């Protein structure tokens, strides 16, 4: 009777150890990845809240039959803005641009140049940061 109880206990104990081993082996990598994703999510949320941009100035320079648009952007937030992932829309249309800086630090300005635009009248400019934060401004081309 004593041997039966001992052997049964041993079988159950071994199965418990195997289950713990399998569970930990499967769950630990998932928990680690989940923790990394949560940290990244938290960082993006904080960056988004602390990020802000302002269009300080807009000027145009004649270029052949069209003009170049020069936009001064100020980082009014407290995060660093990667200008490679910023976007410029003129009257709703996406335009490629050249930035004077790759990284725009807080309280600093960068100059975005959009080349070879055409047309006259009032235009609406939208600049979007890498975090999706944006600012609007209008300008007139005579």
């Amino acid at each position, binding site marked *: 009777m004593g041997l039966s109880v001992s*052997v*049964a206990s041993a079988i159950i104990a*071994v199965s418990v150890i195997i289950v713990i081993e399998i569970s930990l082996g499967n769950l630990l990598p*998932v928990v680690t990845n989940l923790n990394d994703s949560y940290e*990244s999510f938290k960082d993006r949320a904080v960056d988004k809240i602390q990020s802000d941009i302002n269009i300080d100035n807009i000027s145009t320079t004649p270029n052949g039959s069209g003009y170049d648009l020069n936009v001064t952007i100020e980082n009014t937030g407290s995060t660093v803005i990667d200008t490679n992932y910023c976007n410029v829309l003129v009257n709703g249309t996406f335009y490629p641009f050249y930035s004077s800086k790759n990284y725009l630090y807080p309280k600093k300005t960068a100059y975005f140049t959009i080349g070879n635009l055409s047309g006259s009248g009032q235009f609406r400019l939208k600049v979007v940061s890498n975090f999706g934060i944006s600012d609007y401004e209008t300008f007139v081309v005579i």
Partner: protein
Amino acid sequence: MGFSVTGSHVVFFIASIIAAGSVSGIFMAATINVTISLSERGIRVQDLLDTDFTIINDNENIPISGSDYLFYLKNIGGNKLITTNQSFSIFVDGEIITVEKYNFTEQSIRPGEVITIYIDNTVISSGDHTLRLVGPNAVDDEFQFTI
């Protein structure tokens, strides 16, 4: 009499091994199933945390190309975003748009990149509208605009 005692001990021994084996088997199967489900759930939550996007159009100037309105979708999440008609559903003023009425310029975009969505102009009349994009893991974004 001696054989009876020994025989009954053997029967009890075998019965206890069978019972312990059965309990262990059921316990292991149940626990492993729970572990697999937790792992899959963890991966889905991880995908959810890594997915984020926003529409960056100018609300008052929606560009048009041929018979399509153009909407710009920016990936502001932490992972590559799969952009297909199957991974995204589009609603205009609460009405779902059928998949043949819109398409994307690329199949996927990396974080920080922008993709253009072409939506047939027959599904959007002039006036004020709300566009709702529902992407992978049911992450969504709403955008109010005027045509």
